[in-house]
């Protein structure tokens, strides 16, 4: 079975838990273990938080494709913002920001970022194996 979720969301903070819980419910329905679901929720939450805090468009999109083996997630900001604003690799120990990208990379696979070709929005892509 393949499940595809496509959500267009207002770029506000309340959208983050909504997206996380919606994807989590689908993964739970497919029998994905809680450990794997927690990793995906964290990475998705970080990607959404980045868009919510740093993008400029009114809306953003989340696309997730799941089969029995893999979950592929893309978080796409609506453009019209500045350049990507992830804060480098590893935050200083006492920094209040800059750990989001580090967490996505730590808990998922095939992480990459792309500038959108048609506008100046950006895409965060990550994947997670669903095999336990």
């Amino acid at each position, binding site marked *: 079975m393949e499940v595809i979720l496509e959500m267009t969301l207002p770029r506000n*903070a*309340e959208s*983050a*838990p*909504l997206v*996380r*819980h919606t994807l989590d419910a689908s993964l739970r329905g497919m029998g994905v273990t809680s*450990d794997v679901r*927690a*990793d995906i*929720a*964290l990475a998705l*939450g*970080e990607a*959404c*938080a980045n868009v*919510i*805090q740093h993008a400029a468009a009114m809306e953003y999109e989340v696309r997730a494709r799941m089969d029995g083996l893999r979950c592929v997630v893309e978080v796409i900001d609506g453009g019209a913002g500045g350049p990507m604003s992830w804060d480098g690799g590893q*935050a200083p*120990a*006492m*920094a*209040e*920001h*800059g*750990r*989001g990208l*580090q*967490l996505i990379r*730590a*808990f998922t696979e095939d992480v990459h970022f792309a500038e959108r070709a048609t506008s100046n929005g950006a895409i965060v892509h990550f994947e997670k194996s669903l095999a336990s």
Partner: protein
Amino acid sequence: MTVDFSVHQRRYGDRTIVAAAGDIDVDSSPRLREFLVGLVDDGARHLVIDLGGVTFLDSTGLGVMVGVFRRLGTANGSLVFAGGTAAVRGVFHMTQLTRVFALHDTLDQALRPAH
């Protein structure tokens, strides 16, 4: 869809136990920050954050903790953590914040006088 987040505090000697529950994320972090900063402004100096009811913790939540820790540090205060699911504890480990914060397995351990 309403997502639950709550935070409560109680005194334990000179310690203040803060029990957070639900998701700590980009949505709820401002409320957590406001609550913790309010405690510090009211004189709390030794905070024990009980993570037992926390279902999700992301980098925005960690940022709040670091900010409060810095605020407490300049006031000779302390901030320690207790409990938490493997996923919640994992974000502390992965970001190496375990070098900054004491992360106790249980609230009882966090409250032992010798800590």
